[in-house]
């Protein structure tokens, strides 16, 4: 449960989710990970530390370079936590609510 809490915390930030998406395509060097973000490298380092603490990434030194790779098993904890039917009903109720919101907007026009 403790790791799940760490994982949920780690993926609660859009930058960290973007880093995960980037790493899902394969290992990358620190500067490659940081490149798409318009933030200080120091901030990226902090995001990576949080991801590492949650067990979501690994760092590996290859010669003079450090490569960062995704450890997807931690994310599996999240998929276990959210049941298939929870996603199904959330989608359904979003559509249902959306139907009435659209009706409400068209009445106001």
């Amino acid at each position, binding site marked *: 449960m403790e790791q799940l809490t760490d994982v949920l915390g780690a993926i609660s930030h859009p930058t960290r989710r973007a880093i995960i998406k980037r790493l899902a395509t394969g290992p990358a060097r620190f500067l490659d990970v940081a490149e798409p973000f318009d933030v200080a490298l120091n901030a990226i380092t902090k995001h990576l530390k949080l991801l590492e603490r949650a067990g979501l990434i690994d760092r590996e030194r290859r010669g003079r370079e450090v490569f960062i790779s995704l450890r*997807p098993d931690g994310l599996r904890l999240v998929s276990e936590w*959210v*049941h*298939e039917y929870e996603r199904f009903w959330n989608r359904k*109720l979003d559509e*249902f*609510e959306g*139907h009435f919101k659209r009706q409400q907007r068209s009445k106001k026009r």
Partner: protein
Amino acid sequence: MNNPKTIEVIVERTIPTSQGEAFDAWLNPKVPGTPWNMAEKLLLNPTVDGLFFWAIKGMPHYGRFLAVDRPGRIQHTWMSPNTSGLESIVTVTFKGKGKDTLMTLVHSGLPDTSGGQSHDKGWKFFLDGFQSQLAKSGAA
């Protein structure tokens, strides 16, 4: 079957309409978001002991209405390939909240498939954009 582990899913929304309208809409297959909407084949008899059948992408769903108490509560059983032979129960309640309606859907008696085949779907779902679901679950 040896008392399989089951779980309960609870989803809540505030619907911008009256309790009666929300109740009626939930039983109207033409309304988006209802379980019956978009079905390829649909049989629906929303009375106590009335049955429903719907199929989407060839996946059949069956159930029996246990309660149809306008405007407050609808309850029916729910069986599909995803319930692994278990008769799960869906209870939808509608409570007036000013001009709106607080709608609560409880799906209980679901087999805990998290250790099984839903893994792959969950994983793919995450990579496709898990963020919004997490936000709804209050985790983000």
